[in-house]
């Protein structure tokens, strides 16, 4: 076995490698290489967050594909037509949008001014100086009607600390979708909900026209949303008003017991629930397998489309999710535009953001397929004509609760999900789940 490697080869390789490393690291401001951190970070702004500037160019907006992407593109065209100012709306694939956005934000790159994102990110990004405050733009716009027109949950979700960071464009909240031909009055409490569900589960009531009474999403990366409504209805919560961990309270355990019981004890939801998310619930509704479901209003256009959903068109409606002694609550999250602290066209970008999330532009955006969280938009005659469920959804939004307002939100959620997934798989009970979660949460939050 001949082991020959000429010294020349090795030297050449080492030289080439060093050249590339130097070329990249020395000019990049975001390189976290250890001993060079001091020198490489100095090429751009040292320790304070950079502020957006206004070079007067065309603002660039990133959004993901889907109804929101289409709507924003249409709104962008309308904006240019109405004001004469250009805007560049770039639509990127949805599933992978998150990764691209995260990479971009983490590398603090330039080139994009506004990014569409979920409001659950706002606390951590704001705390990390990765997005720029925008309340100065909102406060400067006399026609914006922030307090009077925008739903409370949308306002809360856009804020962190003393600043506002997001121009809200859509607000998603989980609602109850139900078959009007099977259920005349939607259940208002979780106990009623269980009764109705049993009525429409074939294995319990053989004469039931549907196979399962209801369904919720249990897929590994989003198992918690459906449970939150139950949690709050029972009077429990994740963190109390002072930020203390209360996820292991008796009310919380009771609520999780109920939620898990739907799958594991009562069996009124499909056994595949731990692997189901939105697309599966949608198909199940379309195929007439469910009498109700914990679902999203975005489903309605398709469910009402007789070409796509012949089993449900004209036979579905939405209602707020059931509640308990503490009231009826839905879990909501905003989608909105946040501003890059390295934005190069800040004012132009803000102008567009204010318009498209404002009273006038918001209507255009919603008519194009979005769902601007403004009372005026939801009360608009054209909108209610096209979406008969709009009024019901507006009611839900008035009392919806938002996401965890902590910079450590993603860590908290990841820990919760790990435990919840085990519970949904039948590996542990509700009390163990929440006790474990509470322990991890206290560790993360330093309580």
């Amino acid at each position: 076995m001949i082991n020959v490697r000429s010294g020349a080869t090795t030297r050449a390789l080492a030289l080439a490698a060093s050249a590339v490393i130097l070329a990249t690291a020395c000019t990049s401001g975001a390189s976290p290489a250890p001993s060079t951190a001091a020198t490489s970070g100095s090429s751009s702004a040292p320790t304070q967050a950079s502020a957006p500037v206004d070079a007067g160019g065309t603002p660039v907006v990133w959004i993901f594909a889907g109804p929101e992407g289409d709507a924003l593109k249409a709104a962008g065209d309308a904006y240019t037509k109405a004001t004469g100012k250009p805007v560049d709306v770039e639509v990127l694939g949805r599933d992978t949008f998150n990764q691209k956005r995260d990479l971009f934000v983490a590398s603090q790159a330039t080139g994009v001014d506004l990014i569409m994102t979920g409001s659950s990110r706002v606390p951590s990004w704001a705390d990390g100086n990765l997005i720029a405050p925008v309340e100065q733009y909102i406060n400067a716009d006399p026609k914006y009607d922030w307090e009077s027109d925008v739903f409370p949950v949308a306002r809360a979700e856009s804020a962190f600390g003393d600043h506002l960071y997001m121009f809200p464009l859509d607000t998603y909240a989980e609602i109850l979708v139900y078959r009007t031909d099977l259920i005349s009055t939607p259940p208002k409490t979780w106990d009623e909900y269980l009764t109705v569900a049993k009525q429409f589960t074939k294995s319990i009531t053989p004469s039931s026209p549907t196979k399962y009474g209801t369904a919720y999403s249990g897929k590994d990366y989003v198992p918690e949303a459906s449970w939150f409504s139950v949690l709050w209805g029972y009077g429990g919560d994740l963190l109390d008003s002072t930020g203390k961990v209360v996820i292991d309270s008796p009310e919380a355990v009771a609520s999780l017991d109920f939620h898990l019981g739907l799958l594991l004890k009562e069996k009124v939801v499909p056994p595949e629930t731990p692997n189901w998310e939105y697309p599966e619930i949608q198909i199940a509704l379309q195929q007439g397998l469910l009498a109700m479901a914990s679902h999203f209003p975005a489903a309605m256009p398709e469910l009402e489309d007789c070409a796509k959903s012949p089993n449900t068109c004209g036979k579905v409606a939405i209602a707020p999710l059931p509640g308990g002694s503490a009231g009826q609550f839905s879990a909501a999250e905003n989608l909105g535009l946040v501003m890059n602290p390295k934005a190069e066209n800040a004012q132009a970008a803000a102008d567009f953001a204010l318009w498209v999330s404002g009273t006038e532009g918001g209507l255009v955006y919603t008519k194009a397929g979005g769902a601007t969280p403004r009372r005026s938009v939801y009360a608009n005659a054209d909108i209610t004509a096209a979406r008969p469920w709009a009024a019901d959804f507006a009611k839900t939004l008035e009392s919806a609760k938002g996401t965890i307002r902590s910079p450590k939100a993603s860590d908290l959620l990841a820990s919760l999900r790990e435990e919840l997934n085990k519970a949904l798989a039948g590996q542990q009970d509700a009390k163990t789940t929440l006790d474990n979660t509470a322990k991890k949460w206290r560790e993360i939050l330093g309580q």
Partner: protein
Amino acid sequence: MIMKAGTRQLVLIYGLIGLVVGWLVLPALWMLLTSIKPPALVATNPPTFLFSPTSANFTAVLGAKEVVGSIRDTVVISIATTVLSVTIGSFAAYSIARFSTGGTPVFFFLILVQAIPSVVLGLPFFVMFRQLGLYDTIPGLVLAYTTVSLPFAIWLLVAFFDDIPRELEEAALVDGCSRWGALFRVVMPLARPGLAVAGILTFMSAWNQFFFALVLAGQNVRTLPQVASNYISTYTLDWGKVAAAGVLLLIPPVIVVLVMQRHIVRGLTFGAVKG
């Protein structure tokens, strides 16, 4: 093993192959059916096999602006990656197969590169390519794809070169050929099946690459898998259009395979290799 099969063996062959190939083909078949199904019939229970087909999905996908451009981009990138990987890969593979060039360090290095999950390369490549001006360019993507496919091609080709007896080159050298001549005129033609296999596999890997396209391409360069993913979002899953895009994505690879498979199947005329 190159024998003509008798009847009993034929039954066995067709049976086994049929079963396995049936399993291999099932998703593609279902995808094809879904692409021409009316949307309401996509997920019925029991499944719908007979229906009147519709071309709505294909017209929608082909009509989307970015699809044609992305087909062109993806073809260019895939071919470039394949040519690059197979060329320099075969040189390196020959050197390693015959002389164990670089020995253990190179061996470990190649394993190392191949063991890195693409996800891990995402952020560094992103930063690096932006700095070097390679972001959102075709050469940039070709380089990224090659990083992933080159070690793989080298391993494969090392194995194929190992199979070619050294006596042939040695005979050529004795006849007065230089090492280079021996390589190009004697060994490479013999390595054709291996090169074809490596070519097909590299092309497929590049064609279907998704993660790097996501990270390193933006507005100027679009790849087809990226475009296909646009039809998949958390709240709308347009099965028909995804299926149509998937079918379109299948066509160029099938063409490539049709072209390359002649080189793999040598047949009974393979007489160049003696004893």
